[in-house]
């Protein structure tokens, strides 16, 4: 879900920048990367602290049932590793989504792509990313992959339409 947050936030940055006239690729990249870093940090610490608290509670329950401490065992080490791994994944997820959405602006920065095309391509890549996230969720939950993909895509399309509407009439 942090990937979804990253994609939607970056979509908002790109569209918001475009409709307010901030059409410099370097500025959009700077804002996007700063936001990605903040989301990554938030993802890491938020997930780490939550997972650590939940796993600590689980470990204590097992210790009560076992009538012994498990601090120096493989059980504790596995819990610590899992907590770190989940936190790292949760921090990288929004950063990856943001980089996907910002990639056309790097091309624009080096004059390979015009800014208008970069905006269009960024929106397209974000929507594809959202569809893929839904598809992936559908695979995990063993539900219709295409339907799940389109549900996520719908969120992105709604956001795009609303922001463009605000930009035109706001």
């Amino acid at each position, binding site marked *: 879900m942090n990937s979804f947050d990253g994609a939607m936030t970056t979509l908002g940055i790109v569209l918001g920048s475009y409709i307010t006239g901030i059409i410099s690729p370097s500025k959009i990249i700077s804002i996007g990367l700063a936001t990605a870093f903040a989301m990554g940090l938030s993802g890491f610490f938020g997930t780490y602290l939550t997972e650590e608290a939940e796993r600590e509670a689980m470990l204590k*329950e*097992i210790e009560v*049932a*076992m*009538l*012994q401490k*498990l601090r*120096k*065992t*493989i*059980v504790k080490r*596995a819990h610590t590793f899992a907590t770190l791994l989940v936190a790292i994944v949760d921090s990288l997820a929004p950063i990856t989504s943001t980089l996907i959405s910002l990639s056309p602006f790097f091309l624009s920065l080096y004059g390979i792509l015009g800014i208008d095309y970069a905006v269009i391509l960024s929106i397209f890549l974000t929507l594809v990313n959202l569809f893929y996230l839904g598809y992936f969720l559908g695979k995990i939950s063993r539900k219709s992959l295409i339907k799940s993909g389109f549900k996520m895509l719908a969120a992105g399309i709604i956001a795009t339409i609303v922001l463009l509407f605000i930009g035109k009439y706001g």
Partner: protein
Amino acid sequence: MIRKLVLDVMKPHEPSILDLSKSISRLNGIDGVNITVYEIDRKVENVKITIVGSNIDFEEVKKVIEENGAVIHSVDEVATGKKMVSESKTPQDFNVRMR
């Protein structure tokens, strides 16, 4: 030298008995390990661990069991010496059964 050990052990569900038996069987002097679950509840399971080998090091076995989060409740059977000796049946065993 210890040739056979039967231990009553309580362990959390993870690591599984597959992982625990592999860890014990890797020790020197151990030829085979059998782990049977005889009781399960929500958080823990009670298992019987049977270990046979040419020269079992009890302290090493205990260390591996504890490292995997398990605890030895009791040593239920042990066979030591050059030959493996099984439990002998006595008339008292038959009397108890007939009652």
